[in-house]
């Protein structure tokens, strides 16, 4: 059964059709890649799923619920977490706090609990730290937890973003170019990490430019070009697909 079901999704920016009647399914427990040349509308699709943009047409069904017009924070609490193409950590906050922030949506304490600190609030705080430590360990981030996140290396910042997303205990994690700025060694470890995430039962949807990574890790690939879906299927099929080759070659000619 499809965990995420996109149907006829369309988004206009002024006169530009950024996403044009796109439909595809993401099955539970799979690793799905969304690829396409620059400006194909991949990140826009992500932003539509996570509620940063509202689609002009179409449906986004997640786990049986329509996400259209739901605010982002609700979508997160329903179980979709994401990372950003341009890293968006809380730069001045510590590594630990960044990881803890993911757990925010599973916590309850408000201002009164914050001021008067009843026992359940302390337990909850402790739990947040535990989850954050667990996820930091899971992604393999072994650094000083009290340093500001802006001081981390690029690759480590990407890992911290993934840890933050995982801390919200998502059903689906959306990774926007997770290998961007990583070296070969880091990329290999990332492939491993993505598989481990899936093995925990979390479905993965990712955008990536590194084709070898996509072909290696994804089980199913959707190809966008100019906002339209031009192909989909297993990596081998997509690689042979004429339209896909044209789309990428066409880009090269420019």
């Amino acid at each position: 059964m499809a965990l995420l079901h996109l149907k006829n999704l369309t988004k206009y920016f002024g006169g530009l059709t950024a996403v044009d009647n796109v439909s595809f399914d993401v099955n539970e427990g799979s690793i799905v890649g969304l690829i396409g040349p620059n400006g194909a509308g991949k990140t826009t699709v992500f932003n539509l799923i996570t509620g940063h943009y509202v689609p002009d047409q179409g449906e986004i069904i997640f786990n049986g619920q329509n996400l259209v017009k739901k605010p982002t924070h609700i979508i997160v609490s329903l179980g979709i977490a994401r990372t950003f193409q341009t890293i968006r950590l809380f730069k001045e906050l510590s590594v630990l706090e960044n990881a803890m922030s993911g757990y925010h949506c599973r916590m309850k304490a408000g201002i009164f609990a914050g001021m008067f600190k009843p026992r359940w609030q302390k337990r909850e705080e402790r739990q947040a730290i535990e989850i954050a430590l667990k996820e930091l360990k899971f992604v393999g981030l072994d650094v000083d937890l009290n340093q500001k996140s802006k001081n981390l290396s690029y690759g480590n910042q990407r890992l911290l973003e993934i840890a933050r997303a995982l801390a919200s205990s998502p059903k689906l994690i959306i990774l926007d170019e997770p290998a961007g700025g990583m070296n070969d060694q880091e990329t290999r470890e990332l492939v491993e990490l993505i598989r481990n995430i899936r093995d925990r039962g979390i479905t993965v949807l990712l955008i990536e430019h590194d084709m070898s990574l996509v072909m290696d890790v994804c089980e199913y690939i959707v190809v966008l070009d100019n906002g339209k879906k031009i192909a989909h299927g297993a990596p081998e099929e997509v690689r042979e697909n004429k339209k896909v080759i044209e789309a990428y070659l066409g880009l090269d000619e420019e």
Partner: protein
Amino acid sequence: MELFFQQLTNGLAIGGIYALIALGYTMVYGVLKLINFAHGDLFTLGAYIGFTLLTSMNLIGKIGPLPTLFLFGIIIMGLVGIAGIVLERIAYRPLRSADRLAAVVSALGASIVISNSIMLIYGARFLVYPHHILPNFTINLLGMKIPFMRIAMLLLSIILMIILYLFVQKTRIGTAIRATAIDHGAARLMGIDVNKIISVVFFIGPALGGAAGFMVGLYYGQLNFMMGWMYGLKAFIAAVIGGIGNIPGAMLGGLLLGVIEALGAAYISTSWKDAIAFFVLIIILIVRPTGILGERVADKI
């Protein structure tokens, strides 16, 4: 009907002043994305320099009132423009790559410095322009007596605005200003000296603001070191109404705000006059945050 037209012309005259000041805000916002809080105080500076010139030099007797005022206007625009360049060098340039909040605080600081320097030099009390200098006759328009100054002010504002508009649209420097407003990096790659362009903007905006200050001095005759604050705020509101960063928008917003305020004072309540602009601002920001002529930009994520 008489009241309506009197208020309308009055509103247009004041609106012209708002528009002139608003141009300074909108141009600076265009190139630096910064509210130049000190802009209103440069307006005040213009009014005070005008006072000094009028009281210290007796040119009127020699070359007549209008040439004198014209000459003084040019001097004021030049001096206040230079003050604008100095302001940018000291208070804004070191903060160009800094956090937005830092620049806003520095702008507020600069505002306080300028207004209080004026106070320390000229004193905290109201000053009065020598009032015999101006032709205070009225002009008969459609059976109504409209003060000459009102019409002169509106015409002068419009002339200055047209000159500015043509400058920005038709000249090389104007093109460079527009390019800088869109993207500093790209402008630099095209060989534009961004620092120079910013200095030009910080000359033109304050020069227009200084001219507006002189006109207000001549129109109302009274000066106070804090006067620039209210005019500045309202002009900024005018710029937001028109669409911040947009030059025709600032002109439209200024005239519109002047008229709304004058009519509101006449038909609603004089004592709420200063609040009207803020109500208009809040409504605009709720209904159409980009202003009347502003373009909508999607947030990039």
